[in-house]
């Protein structure tokens, strides 16, 4: 989305749905890309026999990466993700199809930026497996990248508690 079109976004608007087929490669690439060497993310025999899991499972860093990617697809490369929270209800294994859905839960203007609070779910086989809340910031008058480190930290902490609930 462009900044101009983002200015038309309203609370309750929905993000476009994203569907991703999950394979063993999806899970193993994510684990290695995030430097996670736990065998439950790459060794099917171990995951089943030692951990009692149905298969290898997607690690939390990869889930964070997919959530971030889903948000920046919508908000654009100029946007700045400030906060990402997620709760994993069920494991994500090869053979499933992740369906990402999101909606705008809130928005505020502060410091020349628009702060969006998004509610996102990942579903597999029509069941929500991960629930997430993401805060992403876009420019109104100011780019979210224009602040000093300390000014950004103050803004983020001031926004945080009220936004995420």
């Amino acid at each position: 989305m462009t900044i101009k079109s983002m200015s038309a976004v309203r609370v309750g608007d929905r993000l476009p749905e994203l569907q991703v087929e999950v394979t063993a490669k999806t899970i193993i690439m994510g684990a290695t890309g995030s430097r996670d060497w736990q065998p439950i993310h790459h060794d099917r025999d171990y995951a089943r026999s030692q951990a009692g899991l149905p298969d290898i499972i997607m690690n939390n860093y990869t889930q964070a990466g997919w959530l971030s990617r889903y948000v920046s697809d919508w908000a654009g490369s100029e946007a700045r993700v400030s906060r990402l929270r997620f709760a994993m209800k069920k494991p994500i294994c090869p053979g499933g199809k992740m369906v990402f859905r999101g909606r705008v839960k809130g928005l505020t203007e502060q410091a020349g930026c628009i702060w969006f609070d998004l509610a996102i779910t990942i579903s597999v086989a029509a069941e929500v497996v991960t629930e997430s809340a993401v805060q992403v910031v876009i420019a109104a008058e100011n780019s979210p990248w224009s602040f000093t480190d300390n000014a950004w930290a103050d803004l983020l902490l001031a926004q945080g508690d009220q936004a995420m609930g």
Partner: protein
Amino acid sequence: MDCDSSPPLPEQVASWVGKPVICMDPVLVAEQGLWLNYCVAVEDRNQAYWDAVPGSEAGPIAPPAMLPSWVVDHDWHPDPGRDRKRTLELHFLLKDELELPFGVVVDVELLFFRPVRSGDSLRAEQVLVEIGEQYQTRMGPGRRWTIAVHYYHRDNQLAGIQTLKFVSYRKEASL
């Protein structure tokens, strides 16, 4: 199990609450080749990671969601005597001290401050935020605890804070 029958926390564990218990020194230098593997894994086309933040001359940044990975040590090192800590060492210490060998992450929150760029290296401090009473999980006795990991740049500026909520337990028949 109700609170009255919950065993007291070992003194050492109680003394950890609210303090940095584990400090992780920098173990590697961030570089774009490493973080592009992560972008490929999640098919992320964000220009900020591949090229630069649009309108910025500061060059590309690492995907923020990858923050915790920058303090994960190499899985192998030529020096076999190197002191290598596990990624969430404090979590493993708690599991050992409380004899709760199985643990799962149930909730993760990441706050992003100064972004990571090529050439940066981070250190981290692991803080025990809180620990609950022992209670009966479906599998056996367990506890909940929360760990916050603070990630710092070399000049001590915050890169981010990761807060993880765990449930750890032991299987009833394992004692």
